[in-house]
């Protein structure tokens, strides 16, 4: 029998980023990250990607740790990638969804959280339709780390991290890039977290889409006080052709079909005509512009099929990056902590 090997023998220095990754209790959004911590996380993910490239994708870094994914909303890629990330790091991963659990019997979010904490869970990965649900759990649970896997319209920090990772891998940098986010910004947690991430790392963030799907405070022309610190990090240009001029990255957001019935749009047809991201639209962007989408895509609506599957698309790499990023995040929360 071989002796248990230490974590260090399995993970590269890069993955551990021991000197750089700061202590962190929760990952709720990217608004409380410094640019240095963002970069350290991306570098750590790069080391994690190396593990994922091995024949035997398993390291004992989080052996003995218990991770629960608690999803109150449907998800494929986020949930599976968190599960895979935890398992590659040898954590025990338990999946819970609201249907079939006590939540179905009316158990409150708080009591569900307290119950899981009492069972000794180390990390709770939460997706919830209400903005701030992970913050609420983080506030009320004192022995569990909370990772936000998407909450309402608020944030999806690991998605933004994997977007940053993908852009840095493909283009070699983030600082100074022009990143255009197109579509339903108003209802997009992906957009909010991406704004924090890209802006903090020095990119220029431009938003484009219908005015009805843009937060009003982003549209105000006059320099006003910005108590929340988000509006001042973005520019808005509703004319997509102008917005993409010189862009290095264009990210299309998912357009929910209920936006039309909700009165936000005259018709999907008109949306396609004005804001679909397609080859013709990108004429004035940089020739090697990177095209991204958080998924799941409505091909032919917010993005053309040709572009989604073409050479300029980074959409598949985004998915691959998701596992490495979530490994880095779970590792930071669980393996750090030597105070």
């Amino acid at each position, binding site marked *: 029998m071989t002796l248990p090997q230490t974590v260090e023998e399995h993970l590269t220095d890069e993955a551990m980023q021991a000197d750089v990754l700061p202590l962190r209790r*929760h990952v*709720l*959004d990217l*608004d*409380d990250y410094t640019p240095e911590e963002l970069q350290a996380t991306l570098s750590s993910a790069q080391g994690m990607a190396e593990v994922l490239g091995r024949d035997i994708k398993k390291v004992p870094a989080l052996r003995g740790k218990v991770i629960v994914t608690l999803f109150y909303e449907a998800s494929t890629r986020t949930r599976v990638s968190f599960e895979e990330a935890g398992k590659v790091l040898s954590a025990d991963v338990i999946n819970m969804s609201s249907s079939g659990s006590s939540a179905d019997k009316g158990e*409150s*979010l*708080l009591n569900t959280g307290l119950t899981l904490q009492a069972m000794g869970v180390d990390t709770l990965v939460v997706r*919830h339709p*209400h*903005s*701030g*649900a992970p*913050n*609420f759990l*983080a*506030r*009320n649970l004192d022995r569990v780390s909370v990772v936000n896997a998407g*909450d*309402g*319209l*608020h*944030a999806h920090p690991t998605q933004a991290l994997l977007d940053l990772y993908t852009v840095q891998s493909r283009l070699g940098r983030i600082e100074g890039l022009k990143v255009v986010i197109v579509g339903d910004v108003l209802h997009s*947690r992906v957009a*909010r977290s991406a704004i924090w991430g890209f802006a903090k790392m020095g990119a220029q963030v431009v938003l484009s889409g219908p005015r009805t799907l843009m*937060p*009003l*405070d*982003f549209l105000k022309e006059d320099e006003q*006080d*910005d*108590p*929340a*610190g*988000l*509006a001042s990090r973005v520019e808005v240009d509703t004319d997509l052709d102008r917005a993409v001029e010189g862009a290095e990255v264009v990210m299309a957001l998912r357009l929910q079909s209920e936006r039309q019935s909700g009165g936000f749009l005259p018709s999907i047809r008109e949306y396609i005509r004005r804001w679909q991201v397609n080859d013709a639209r990108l004429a004035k962007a940089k020739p090697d512009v990177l095209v991204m989408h958080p998924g799941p895509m409505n091909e032919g609506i917010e993005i053309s099929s040709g572009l989604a599957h073409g050479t300029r698309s980074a959409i598949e790499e985004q998915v691959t990056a998701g596992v490495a990023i979530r490994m880095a995040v779970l590792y930071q929360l669980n393996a750090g902590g030597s105070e």
Partner: protein
Amino acid sequence: MSESLHRPILIRRARLIDPGRQVDSVGDILLADGRISSCGPVIDVAPEGSVVIDGSGLVASPGFIDLHAHLREPGYEYKETIETGSQAAARGGFTTICCMPNTDPPIDSEAVVEFVLRRARDSGMVRVLPVGCVSRGRKGKELADLEELHNSGAVAFSDDGDPIQDANLMRMALAYSADLGLPVSNHCQDLHLSGEGVMAEGAVATRLGLPGIPPAAEDAMIARDIALAQSTGGRLHVAHISTAGSVPLVRRAKELGLRVTAEVCPHHLTITDEWAMGSQGTGLGRAEWAYDTSTKVYPPLRQRSDAETLVAALADGTIDCIATDHAPHDIASKQVTYQDAAFGISVLETALGSSLQPVHDSRISLATLVERLTAGPARVLGQHYATLATLATGTEADITLFDPDLKWTVDSAEFASKGKNTPLDGTRLRGRTIATISAGRIVYQSPQLIVQEADAAV
């Protein structure tokens, strides 16, 4: 204290502020048999057996009147009862509170009005005046029996909690009640515009990803109601005004001589939507402290410019009075996600300390503020209630004694109200009730009250 209930009370050397009579001077007040027997002149010898209170450094004013409180009884006694709400009122310096009819059953019949009045009498703290429903069952479909409600003791009509969406029903309510002389109060919120909103539309809502309520949801309905008041001659009282945009609408209505009044809540004068980000508005807090559900209230906490406009409108008289919209909730209703949390703040016991903040900031005078807590709301209730807001000799002795400068820390655990839901928990306020006298009886006294026996005081 019980033996002192029927004894005369002499308050010495207090700053007497009686806005209805333009009194603002230091003097004594003597209360006997539940009435004010002398106000102003120094009384050298306290009557035998009287309780003598040292009023130096304190303000003595008519008891505060709150036009807008939710006492939750009948139906929601786990949130508040008429008794606990009355105790909270007394601690806050209120001697008269108007209770809103969104109870279960709602206050839409003589039987429920009488129930409320009986419970208030039994608790024996402060005067409770019921507000009757505008519509039967508060369903917004057909008028309640407004005259029956009036005759049994209702002082105003409101479907508060739910806005009257149907413009024609609002028109009928204003027209029908015009000869009863009672104001119709509307919770102005266009539900199509407010939608799923849970906080004020703006930069903070955008950052937190919470659905916003545009200010137009309030402004548009106030504009509608003013037009209806104009065409019917009815008395409109605009509940809890919260937007900068609504102020010129009310001001214009008053210039036109319409019978329109308005109230504002202490929280809309003093705190903003930034408090929802945590750390009580002192800048961005730790992420865990964001989504503080105690900041969830309707109308929502708005932006600084709104609060500033409202303070100015309160000072210039466009807004007639301060009302608390005291909305106590049980803990479970607030210990949920922001979107699931109930709307409302427990206000009665912090109202004075909050409302004094613009006084300390020199944006409104102390005498004016007292007017907005006493004679202002009495004016909204009508001539019949003018005696509730005066220190005039011979009137019933409803008096609030407060220290405008006493600094204290809010601790909701000490509230008499069952509702501990306040964003002010742990904050410092300046100004606090020292004693509340209702119908000549001390119904609340703080530890700071200095009471001397008559003999020792000579």
